[in-house]
């Protein structure tokens, strides 16, 4: 406290309490008079930054030296064609009523609808789909309703779509304009001439709009997904194309899955191989794109470490695999007695290592494939296509088997040649039906004459 005294800081507890007390007091005070609190809250509860009403103007002004009276006087409007006499209050200054047209007459705008003569019609406007009578009616309505085509379509005696009416009107007007113009150049700037009405386009556009408008939320989401997917594929294709452009100098033993093992000028073959691969389906495109883009980026580096290059290649190769799969690859490598990172990373060693990893990936994929097929098979064999409650449980269990089935059933003996058909205790679910002597638990609980073991 003394320190605060010395520094001259206010003693905090009291002022805060005081602030707190004064603030709610101020808040309720802040509600302005003149408008209700709710209305005030609409503006955000804060006074506007600029006063909308000039306060100085609000004061009562002393009466000026002019004499002002208000009189009920007749008036005419140039906007009216019928000479109707109307009356209104008029501000009379010093006994002199105001002159001039009715102040709102200037707002009476209308469209300049071109009217053609009969000769002109015969010369330029004949159309198999339209009679002269119809066209006349159309133009009448257009003039009457200021080109409000929805109303015109409504009022039109014979049923015509809005697009048809528009088409007829605009093409007819255009034809007349062009015909009347002394030279084509003069009319070229006219909007009707410059941008003619395109019926088919309009119909299509309106149809598309209504489709978009009537899309359900579900549809919207699906569309967004498809677009995102398309974007991704387009981008990966661009990456693949960009990566193929520069010459790939890396000798093929670290290259993509090309069979060629030639070194040196034979590398002209590997780019074309890459291109052939890239022409294939999208998923493989992305894998090859990964590989060749990795190679391209390595080449950009000028200098790099072999271990770094291997890491990049490994990442590219396992880009499509999930984290669990990658862990399984590493587990398999360890089981085989191979270092996750080679101790002597020469070119040859790195290449072999990479190939080994890819082969293990293939192996794991095949294992999974086999599992699914066997699950399918066992559910088929139980005749579980449908109605028994027990069946649902069985197929469920088959699926559970899949999930708990740890695929490292085949152990790799460190001694090469021991192809371990050993069943390790690691697995939780039962083994494959074709190999196990005991039938898988649950799947054949139903009393059956034939058991898998009998086969």
């Amino acid at each position, binding site marked *: 406290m003394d320190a605060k005294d010395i520094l001259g800081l206010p003693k905090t507890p009291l002022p805060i309490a005081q602030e707190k007390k004064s603030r709610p007091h101020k808040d309720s005070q802040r509600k302005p008079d003149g408008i209700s609190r709710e209305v005030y809250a609409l503006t955000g509860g804060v006074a506007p930054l600029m006063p909308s009403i000039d306060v100085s103007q609000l004061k009562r002004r002393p009466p000026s030296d002019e004499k002002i009276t208000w009189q009920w006087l007749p008036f005419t409007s140039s906007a009216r064609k019928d000479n109707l006499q109307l009356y209104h209050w008029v501000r009379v200054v010093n006994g002199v009523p105001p002159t001039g047209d009715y102040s709102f007459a200037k707002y009476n705008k209308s469209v300049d609808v071109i009217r053609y003569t009969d000769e002109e019609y015969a010369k330029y406007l004949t159309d198999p789909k339209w009679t002269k009578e119809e066209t006349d009616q159309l133009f009448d309505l257009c003039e009457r309703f200021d080109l409000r085509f929805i109303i015109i379509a409504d009022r039109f005696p014979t049923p015509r779509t809005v697009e048809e009416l528009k088409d007829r009107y605009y093409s007819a007007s255009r034809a007349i304009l062009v015909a009347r113009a002394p030279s084509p150049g003069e009319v070229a700037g006219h909007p009707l001439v410059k941008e003619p009405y395109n019926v088919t386009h309009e119909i299509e556009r309106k149809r598309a709009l209504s489709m978009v408008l009537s899309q359900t939320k579900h549809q919207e989401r699906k569309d967004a997904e498809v677009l995102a997917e398309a974007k991704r594929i387009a981008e990966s294709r661009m990456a693949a194309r960009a990566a193929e452009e520069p010459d790939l100098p890396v000798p093929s033993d670290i290259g993509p899955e090309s069979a060629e093992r030639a070194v*040196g000028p034979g590398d002209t073959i590997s780019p074309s191989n890459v291109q052939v691969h890239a022409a294939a389906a999208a998923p493989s495109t992305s894998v090859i794109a990964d590989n060749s883009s990795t190679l391209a980026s390595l080449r950009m580096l*000028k200098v790099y470490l*072999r*271990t770094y290059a291997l890491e990049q290649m490994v990442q590219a190769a396992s880009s499509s695999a999930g984290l669990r799969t990658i862990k399984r690859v590493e587990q398999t490598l360890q089981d085989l007695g191979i270092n996750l990172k*080679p*101790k002597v990373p020469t070119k040859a060693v790195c290449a072999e290592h990479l190939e080994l990893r890819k082969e293990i990936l293939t192996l794991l994929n095949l294992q999974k494939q*086999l599992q699914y097929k066997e699950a399918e098979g066992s559910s088929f064999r139980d005749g579980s296509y449908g109605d028994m409650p027990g069946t649902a449980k069985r197929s469920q269990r088959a699926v559970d088997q899949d999930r708990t089935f740890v695929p490292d059933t085949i152990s790799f003996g460190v001694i090469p040649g021991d192809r371990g058909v050993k069943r390790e205790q690691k697995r939780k679910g039962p083994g494959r039906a*074709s190999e196990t002597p005991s039938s898988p638990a649950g799947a054949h609980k139903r009393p059956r004459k034939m058991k898998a073991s009998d086969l």
Partner: protein
Amino acid sequence: MGKSDDTEKKKKIKDVEISVPVVYGNAAFWLGKKASEYQSHKWTVYVRGATNEDLSVVVKRVVFQLHSSFNNPTRVVESAPFELSESGWGEFEIAITLFFHNDVCEKPLNLYHHLKLYPEDESGPMSTKKPVVVESYDEVVFTEPSESFLARVQNHPAVTFPRLPAGFTLPPPAPVEDENKRKRGDTKDHPLNQWFLNFSEADELLQLAAARQQVQAHIAKLRRQICLTDGQNQQFKPI
């Protein structure tokens, strides 16, 4: 050196990579009786050619970045053998930056080594005679070597020379410098030489080949099983 010479030297060759196998790491001796609290070990961190050849044909200098608690933690070594000796008590990561000659590569390359002083087997006795040695093997790859670089290192044992495109000839190498001067840069007679580890790619290749064989056999077996299961499933498939 005329301008045309320069451009000639800078000419790069595509589709050719040249690599330099290196080994980097440290050897640490326990000081035994002479050890104090802050100086319990004497260690040397180094970068050497994998076959103990002289790296200065490629490397201009090496910078070792030590822990900030050391005086002048940035140590620059301008000539082979590229090593640095110090004494201390702690293990930490050392950043080793290799700077190459101008015609080799303008960008430096970083290596990272974790200094190891204490043996893996903590229970074993520490010896002042036998150092703790940890080494890592790696290869420095140059992607677009210039002609002059290739010409210069043509027959140098420190460098793994690539097979050149057919019909390609290099100018003869510049006359080799003083033999004695060159000899000193290699680590064949280095005092620590007896502790250097051996890195043989042959063993690893063998291991990898064996592993691949196993995996391939397994793959073939799985493929057969899949075919079989497919066949079996066909019979029982609901219509």
